[in-house]
Structures are given as C-alpha cells and as structure tokens.
C-alpha cells in the first residue's frame, strides 16, 4: 500500500477540463451508440468505458497527488461502490435517459461524500468534492459501458437479467475499478507523467473490453463477441506499445540483463 503523492497538486499535461470532456462525452456517446446500434456494434460501449476509465484515472491522479493517507486502491473501490449504486438506480428509473440520470445521481453522491470527507472527517484536500464527483461519474460510466458490451443494451430488465443476476456485474466491478485505480497506483512517484499514467488507463480499459467481450458471446453470439475481443486486442496492443515507449522515454536507461545464469556458469 502506498500513501500517494507528495502533498501538492498534480502538475503538467492536458488540463482537467479536456479530460473531463473526453470522459463525459466519449463515455455517454459510446454507451448510447452501443445501445442503439445492432448487437455487433456493442463494442462502442467498451470504447465509452475506456474514455471514462481515462477520465477516472486522471481524477484519481489529481486527488491522490495530495496524499490520501491510505492506499490509492481505496478510492477506486469507492468509485465503483458509488458507481454501482448510481448506475442501477439510473437505469431503473430513467429508461432512455437512464445513463444520464445515473451520471447525475453519481455526481450528487460523489459531491456529498467528498464534502463529508473534507468537512466532517477533515481530510483537507481542496479539490476533494470535485474529484469525488468526477470519480463517481467515471465509475458509473465504466459500469454502464461494460454492461452495454455484455447485454447489448442498457434497458433495465436486460441488464438485470444478463449482467446482474448472472453475477458478471462483480467482474465489471473489479476490472472497472482496476482500470481507475491501477494507473496512478502503478505510476506514482516523483517521475510520474500524465501521459504515461493515462496510456496505462487506456490499456487497462482495453483489457476490460477483451474480458467482457468473452462474456458477451452469451447474449450476442460469437460474431459480436469476436468483434468486441478483436477491437479490445487492437486497442490493447497500441496502448501497450505506447506505454512501453513512454517507459523507455522516462527511464534513465533501459538495459538488458540477459537470461539467468545456469548452474554451471555460477560455479
């Protein structure tokens, strides 16, 4: 468990507004495209989830840079905890406006929990309310996006029958949370750069898309599942190579150590 950053705000890279816009617009557009297009295009939900994952990881990066006092993973779990509650509520009352209702409810829950953390518990992080709202909203969009990939739709009864009752929601909970919490948790430190952290978030989102792609074969047939998995693998490969290139850029030196010496060589 790491305690996060050095006690100041995160610096450098794209401004928060750009990432927020990417997360909200990309996330919602992906979810709606995945819902209204035929089943073979449900990968749009996954692309929406990737946008939201990037946004969530950036919000975690900004808030955890102040030092949470506890591990970065806690905030990812909180994001998906708030996200699950808001997502299921939004779909249950909103019908076609479901994702938007879910998003608004998540932002409200996030602001309340952020205000409680700052005012009652006294964490003293200036951006806590905003960051909590962002993280809750991103968590909700990740859950909705991945649910759309599995179910092919965000209709409440379809999602309940194909995603929640079957238990795949637990899978979404963990892989979605991993995408939000892992990038900053893995990259934090004095040499942390925003682009490297966010590319890692894209890579994690793509892994989530591959995994839910397998599950989607249950409801959408092998063709749609194959498309989901293929798109996931392509995005993963591009993001992974980009991440590796950024690691080489940021590292002081990359050297090969060769294979472990054999027993004879050690003697």
């Amino acid at each position, binding site marked *: *468990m*790491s*305690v996060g950053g050095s006690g100041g705000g995160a610096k450098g890279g794209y401004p928060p507004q750009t990432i927020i816009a990417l997360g909200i617009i990309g996330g919602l557009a992906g979810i709606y495209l995945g819902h209204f297009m035929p089943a073979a295009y449900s990968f749009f939900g996954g692309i929406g989830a990737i946008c939201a994952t990037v946004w969530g990881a950036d919000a975690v990066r900004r808030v955890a840079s102040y030092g*949470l*006092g*506890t*591990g970065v*993973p*806690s*905030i990812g*779990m*909180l994001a*998906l*905890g*708030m*996200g*699950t*509650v*808001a997502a*299921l*509520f939004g*779909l*249950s*009352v909103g019908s076609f406006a479901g994702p938007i209702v879910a998003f608004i*409810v998540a932002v*409200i*829950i996030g602001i*309340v*929990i952020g205000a*409680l*953390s700052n005012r*009652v*518990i*006294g*964490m003293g992080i200036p951006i806590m309310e905003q960051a909590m709202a962002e993280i809750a909203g991103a968590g909700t969009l990740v859950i909705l996006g991945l649910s759309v990939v599995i179910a092919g739709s965000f209709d*409440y*009864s379809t999602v*309940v*029958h*194909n995603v*929640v*009752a*079957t*238990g795949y*929601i*637990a899978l979404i*909970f963990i892989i979605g949370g991993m995408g939000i919490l892992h990038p900053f948790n893995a990259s934090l430190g004095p040499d942390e750069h925003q682009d490297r952290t966010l590319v890692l978030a894209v890579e994690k989102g793509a892994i989530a898309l591959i995994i839910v792609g397998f599950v989607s074969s249950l409801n959408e047939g092998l063709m749609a599942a194959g498309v989901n998995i293929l798109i996931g693998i392509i995005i993963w490969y591009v993001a992974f190579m980009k991440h590796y290139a950024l690691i080489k850029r940021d590292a002081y030196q990359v050297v090969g150590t060769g294979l472990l010496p054999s027993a004879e060589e050690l003697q």
Partner: protein
Amino acid sequence: MIEGIMANILWLVFITLGGALISWGVHFIPVGGAPAAMAQATGVGTGTVQLAAGAGLTGLVSAGFMMNVTENLPLILASGAVGAMIMISVTMIVATWVYVYGVGCVPSSAKVKTDPITKYRQDIYVSQGTEGHGIPTVSFVSGVIGAALGGIGGGLVYYSLIEVGMSIGLTAGVTPDVVGNSLVGVAAMFAIGIFMVNAVIPSYNIGGTIEGFHDPKWKKWPKAVISSLIASLLCAIVAVIAILQLGGI
C-alpha cells in the same frame, strides 16, 4: 416513488444503521498497510478496504446462506457476524505465523506499554525504528470484534434490501436456473456498493494504519460514523427505489 420510500422507511433505517455499523467496525480492525507488510507496524499488511471488504463480504455471503433456511433476523445477523469473524481470524492467525516464524519478530504494539488484555510488556519487544510488528492479543481481539460488527452491518443491509424486494412480490428463493435470481443479484450488488463506500470513509478517517480499540486514533470514530450515516442514507434511498422498480420488469 415517494410512497415506495415511505412504505419501506423501516428498511431504510436498517440499511443506514447497517452502513454505520460497518463504518464503526472498520475502526476495530488492525490495519497495518504497507509498513506492516514489511513488519514495521502492528497489524495485517494490507489496506483497510481490502481487510474490511474481505471480512464483510464473507459475512454477507454467510448471512445470505442463512436466509435460505430461515427468515429469523437475529439468526441471519449472527451467521453474518460469525462468517466475518472466521474470515478475519484466519487472516490474522496466518499473518501471525508469517510474522513469527517467517520474519522472526515478536507480536508487539508500539501504542501501549502493556497489552490491555494479557498485561504483557510491549515496549521492550518493539524493534528500533518500527511502530511495532505482528498482531498482539489485543489487536487480534479487536479485529474479531470489528469483523463481527462489519458482518452484522453487511447482513443487515442485505437482509433489508431483500425484504424490500419481497414486499413487492419478488422471490429470493434458490432457482435451478443458471441465470440466477434478479432480486438476489441486485440486492447483493447494492449491499457490496454500500459496503465499499462505508469501508473507505473510515479508512480516510484513520489515515492508513490503526492497531485496534486501544489505538488513540480509534477515538476519532464518531466523525466517520456520522459521515457514513449520511452517505448510507443517500445510497439506501437510491437502492430502495431501484429495487422497487424491479417489480415492473
């Protein structure tokens, strides 16, 4: 929507109380975080959320298991509490084996001079430069109490959500169908969501590490419990409405 909430006001109160119990219970669990993983602080070497969620979710499962055979609330809560207590005890005893036989340090607390339960001296066994190590008796007992509270809280949340669903005619019985049961799925997921929120709020309150009820940080619990009451109430309203909507599909 408003009538639905008014009709289920008792279950709303139970869910809120369950959330507050989880939040209070987390304060008892000896969490050492990364320092404990290197045997440099007392407690189990992982974060609050992981420990509380591990114990609490086991409690939720054992409470749900008991609901297969009885409708009796005290029995269900007892089952949840015992499940969580077993889980945390196993975690702590195995961690103690690792600390004692693997790392080779004496379980000792740096926060008190003598163990409040066994009255054994602590300070002379604390290695220099560390905040204690291992899980002394008082922390073990405290962890078991915390897990019991978490298990009762988690069970209470889950039971209340299932009762809300039953009140509109849904069933929570075992089905032979592989696709499972909608009410059980939705209620379990809301219970997990509420559990996670209430496990993270106290972890921010204690700021990473705590040894148990003898730790000075433990006295900060009212702040986290008040926050959890408000957050749980908000989540409970949302959860009850979503479960009531299940009746229409």
